[in-house]
């Protein structure tokens, strides 16, 4: 899982249920530009990690927003990727314990 995917999932997961994440907010909170975010969102929709819905009712003064919510498959993939990342980190940065009895 790429860094952008992880960041997007982070934002979508932490968004409150009554105010779900949408394009501009995901860009701002993840710190990535729309050129990377929208293709990543599209990919995640295709994988079934995210679900989309349009803002209801249609506001009068601006176009409708497309909201993204995470699915159970997305949560599972996120947990798996986080666990793999933690395992990689601990494998590379932790020194092996010194064998007992040696100075």
């Amino acid at each position, binding site marked *: 899982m790429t860094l952008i995917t992880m960041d997007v999932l982070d934002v979508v997961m932490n968004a409150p249920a009554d105010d779900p994440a949408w*394009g*501009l907010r995901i*860009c701002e909170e993840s710190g990535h*530009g*729309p*050129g990377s975010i929208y*293709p990543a969102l*599209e990919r995640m929709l295709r994988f079934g990690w995210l679900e989309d819905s349009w803002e209801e009712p249609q506001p009068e003064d601006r*176009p409708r927003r497309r909201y993204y919510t995470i699915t159970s498959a997305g949560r599972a993939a996120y947990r798996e990727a986080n666990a793999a990342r933690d395992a990689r980190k601990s494998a590379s940065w932790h020194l092996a314990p010194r064998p007992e009895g040696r100075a």
Partner: protein
Amino acid sequence: MKPLCLLAAASPDPDDAHVDLVLDPDKLRVDAYLVQGKSASVSQTNENRTPSSYFISHTHYIEVRRRWYNPNKWLRVLAGRLGETLGGRAPRSLTAFATLLAGRKHSASRVEWLAHLAGETGHQLGRQDQIVAALGFVAAAVRFRLEDAADLAWVPVDAVLRSRFLSGIFVTGPVLAVVLAIVHHDGRYGMVLNIQDPFCVGACTWGAIFGLRKYRKVKPPEPKPRRAKG
């Protein structure tokens, strides 16, 4: 490190044009001439050196690289130029262009991108931010197209990987071709001498199909059970 010099020289931002680097790649040494003395992390490592000779620290190298390779900065410069050329309609024109580029499959993105440009209550995007965002939409549309093209290119490959018969043809075809070529050129005795060649070709093609099946997560159908005799 040479492109660093070129980028430093080509910088459009006068505030950042305070470092002029002259690189000496043979000695892996960097001579940094500080125009405004802002680069504090460049340290003089040897007192006997001439005043203009410095070794550049890795931290400083990263810092300078970030400064010059920062895509957001160049995007803002481009946005400024586009804003001057296209006037007030630049963000919408770019978004319309991005929608066209993305194609019919991604037509829903248009409304989504226009909502992005509209911002949210209490946080409207400035004009330059809108142009930067619209340039991002163009980049996203290009990526949509590339991904669609890649998906299309994988269709025949996936068809071969899913079918045992077609995969078999792709393995045995090259092997038979090599066998025929050897027999044609060197005769049957040549076949005995070069027996390893068809085996290698077969192993490579089978390995490629096996690897591609893993990569594409494609499983061929289970072979049909043979009918019991009698």
